[in-house]
């Protein structure tokens, strides 16, 4: 399971016309990275509330920015020796045998609650860059 974070397409393409492609990509990448940091911070905080060994927090991995289907995205996923990527979705959604695991919906909550911080971080990075 991974979480994909996309850029703000219209605004970015307007700026691109003004500043040129390369300069713009540099700026928007920085915005994406900084905004993703905000999301990851919230995600870790959310996972703290039900942590056991802490492996799920440790293995949170950020990759990107990369191109995918024509847009610039960041990927937040689980990578590491404890193979949490295999089970993280079970914990996120619950299963028939264990419908209410601790921390059910933690990723969704983190996404929802970091929206504002995410937008602010993008704003800040764009302002700083332009």
């Amino acid at each position, binding site marked *: 399971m991974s979480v994909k974070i996309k850029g703000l397409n219209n605004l970015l393409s307007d700026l691109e016309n003004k500043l040129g492609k390369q300069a713009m990509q540099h700026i928007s990448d920085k915005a994406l990275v900084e905004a993703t940091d905000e999301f990851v911070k919230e995600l870790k905080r959310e996972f703290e509330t039900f942590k056991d060994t802490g492996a799920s927090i440790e293995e949170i991995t950020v990759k990107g920015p990369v191109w995918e289907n024509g847009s610039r995205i960041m990927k937040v996923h689980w990578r590491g020796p404890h193979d949490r990527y295999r089970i993280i*979705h079970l914990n996120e*959604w*619950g299963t*028939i045998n264990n*419908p209410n695991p601790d921390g*059910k919906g933690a990723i*969704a*909550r983190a996404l*929802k609650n970091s929206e504002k911080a995410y937008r602010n971080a993008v704003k800040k990075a764009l302002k700083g860059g332009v």
Partner: protein
Amino acid sequence: MDILDMVYKALIADAYIYDQAFGRIKFYEYPETGDVDNPYIVIDPIDTPTPSQYADDQWTKLDFLLQIDVWSRDRKLTEEISDKIRDVIWKTFRFAQRAGPKEYDQGVFRDARRYRGSLYREDLNNL
């Protein structure tokens, strides 16, 4: 009146859902796999409603995130009920659906979906 009640009332107001699952629409509580002879619907709020959209320093909307599971012993029925729920929720609340996992275990099919959306404060009789 809270969102769970509102969703419950919207669901049983639909004839098809009423026929299939009346009496087996639960909040938070999931059935034991052995008890699933008829379709179960479980409504689980994933996050507390958060205030959103401000005007004059007052929040005007509440932002909701729900998970609704459908459990039954029939794969097609599970999906049909889930789709019906999606339509009812969209029509009543304009909450958008996010698909979740479909699962099969011990003869039980499960379809979990999440709904996200916001309602104006006036819609809630809790002021």
